């Protein structure tokens, strides 16, 4: 396994300098997300898991789409490419990852190169609302913890359908909320980039996919993994607050509300698997 330097306590320093207000002020949540999840401080907060369950949840999603040799996978909002690389490494398929964060893509390409996988996996800068691929060019598609943050979800879903070949399989893992019970604190802009504020309920995702002519086959909950991730983020933010970092207190409160919401079942994480009709 490649020895990727692990972001540690030190990265916290940069968290205070992160211009969240500036980013949010631009009003482009997608761009904000891309910047945020590249930030070493944020990566330190999340640890090795950029989404609940980390690799384990990704492996399960790849199982659900029955990814195999000969498949061509598109990873929408791939970040540093961990999932696309995992798929290529373990499932012997080909993969393409797209994201809006150039630094993350550069990192993804580096990893692919260093592992000798560059022939089977590639990464390009693109927007989920306008995928730069011809119709029916993939047999499988993965989108983790991102659909909820896309401003125009219907368009993203339609694009996903368009680039999939008939019978193509989809796995969407995302934050699921109970739109009635979700606390007000989790509806703000900070919550949106944390993939919570603009998330849908389970029926909402199903409708979104169905209306793009993607039939939902199964829904699997990862609430326990979400609870663990929320707890970890809260702990690290408590550490950051204790060490005197700006805005950490506010973020601790948000993390706490999120953790309670998961316990109460109004916030969770799930994988939706489907087939392009």
């Amino acid at each position: 396994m490649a020895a990727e330097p692990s972001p540690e306590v030190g990265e916290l320093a940069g968290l205070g300098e992160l211009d969240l207000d500036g980013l949010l002020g631009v009003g482009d949540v997608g761009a904000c997300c891309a910047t945020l999840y590249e930030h070493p401080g944020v990566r330190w907060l999340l640890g090795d898991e950029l989404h609940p369950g980390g690799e384990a949840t990704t492996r399960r999603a790849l199982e659900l789409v029955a990814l195999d040799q000969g498949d061509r996978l598109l990873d929408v909002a791939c970040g540093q490419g961990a999932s696309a690389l995992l798929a290529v490494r373990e499932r012997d398929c080909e993969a393409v990852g797209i994201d809006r964060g150039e630094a993350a893509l550069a990192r993804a390409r580096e990893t692919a190169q260093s592992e000798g996988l560059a022939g089977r996996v590639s990464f390009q800068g693109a927007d989920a609302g306008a995928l730069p691929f011809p119709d029916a060019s993939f047999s499988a598609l993965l989108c983790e913890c991102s659909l909820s943050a896309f401003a125009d979800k219907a368009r993203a879903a339609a694009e996903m359908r368009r680039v999939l070949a008939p019978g193509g399989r989809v796995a969407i893992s995302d934050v699921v909320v109970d739109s009635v019970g979700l606390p007000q604190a989790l509806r703000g802009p900070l919550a949106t980039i944390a993939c919570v504020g603009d998330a849908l309920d389970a029926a909402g995702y199903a409708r979104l996919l169905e209306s793009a002519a993607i039939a939902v086959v199964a829904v699997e909950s990862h609430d326990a993994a979400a609870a663990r991730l929320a707890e970890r983020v809260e702990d690290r933010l408590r550490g950051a607050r204790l060490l005197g970092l700006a805005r950490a207190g506010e973020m601790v409160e948000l993390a706490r509300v999120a953790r309670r919401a998961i316990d109460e079942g109004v916030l969770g994480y799930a994988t939706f698997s489907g087939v392009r009709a």
Partner: protein
Amino acid sequence: MTYDTSQPTLPTSHLAGVETVLARTESICPRCRRVLDARLLDREGKVILSRTCPDHGDFEAVVYGDTERYLEIQRFDKPGEQPLERQTEAIRGCPHDCGICPEHAQHTCLGIIEVNTACNLDCPICFADSGAGPQQHGYSLTLEQVESMLDAFVRAEGEPESIQLSGGEPSIHPQILEMLAAAKARGIALVMLNTNGIRLARDRRFAPALAELGVHVYMQFDGFDEATQVAIRGKPLTEEKLRALDRCAEAGVTVSLAAAIEHGLNEHEIGSILRFGVEHPAVTGVFFQPVTHSGRFRADSDPLDKLTNSDVIEAISQQLPEWFRDDDFVPVPCCSPSCRSATFALYDGEDLVPLPRLVDVERYLDYVTNRAVPDLDVREALEGLWSARAAGGSGPVAERLDCVACATGMPPELREVAARGFMVVIQDFQDPYTLDLQKLRKCCVSEITPDGRLIPFCAYNSVGYREQVRLQMSPGNGVRNGG
């Protein structure tokens, strides 16, 4: 949520009466002390050490209260290191050649010198069988004897980092300050005085004298309930203990509290002892020790009904859930992983965050699972923190916490908070019932004897060495006896 379709988990509960052999090891007969083949069994979720003596029958003792955790923590097992010098030869076989003998698989992290056998208390639990009354056998070392023992430790370790002067009650030895100074003079960074605190409470000059020498106090502190104190120490002591701690705070002496925890007696005080320690200005760490049934304590107690490290860890998380979880306590990898677990915590007067929540300590201290270690300097610092030679608030610990903070890029003003990390240790010593010779061979805490041997602590207390040394050192046995 209601649409959970995940698979039902496999049953993990242990069926009553079903036993699994986890490992084979060796132990001793608690009566005749001969070496016996032994098995480690899983019985109803606990780890049981079981063996049969041909003359004295079956002996069983619980050695870890949670089998699952016991198996899980075996990955925190750092390969042993060689001491510079071994004092004895392997002739009769472990554990009867202690000294350290060539079969021992670890060097000494922490040396202990018992400077006397006399005490100003008569604790019912005393594993050293000390006391205030007239003693049939007893001794008090001279300064010269202690110096030669310190020299033996230096020969074995080169640059030993930690030593503890103990007893008896070392603070009542008339030359204790000279002895502590002699340890400091040999460059030992962490010199500890293991005391009941009574002299600190009664003698105003004592804490300032310790401060001047830079000595760290390791003070017995078993809880606040009178019943606890009477059972463990023979009389209520809270007032004197608190006065001793305040004197230390005034003088600038750092203190680790050492709490003996006995099943059914003071388990319920674990949380309040820890919270008190975290909040007291002099206290930089708490050591919880499940009471060993060596020496004179409860010779009739049931070894199958004894507290172990996992029980104490669970009690901490249950009693202080806002601060601690079970997995905040990471096994110390230099000794056997079930001997000692520890954590460091950052505290700002309000909130407390254990260090493993901020740095992935397990990733650095796991020697079995094949994972890339991100930074070897950080591993080395963490090895020095998760070690029997560490005590919270001491110079070396502050330096290593600073190294962890620094190597990970923390800005200097924040590193100061990290360097004040509060240490929590749970350490289970073995007694004749729980003695596992495989564990013993990796022991890194040694009793230094007047003849210059380094005897692993649990062997010293379980196999007969303590009695042997005491007899040799007592008047009328041809050994010079000072004090």
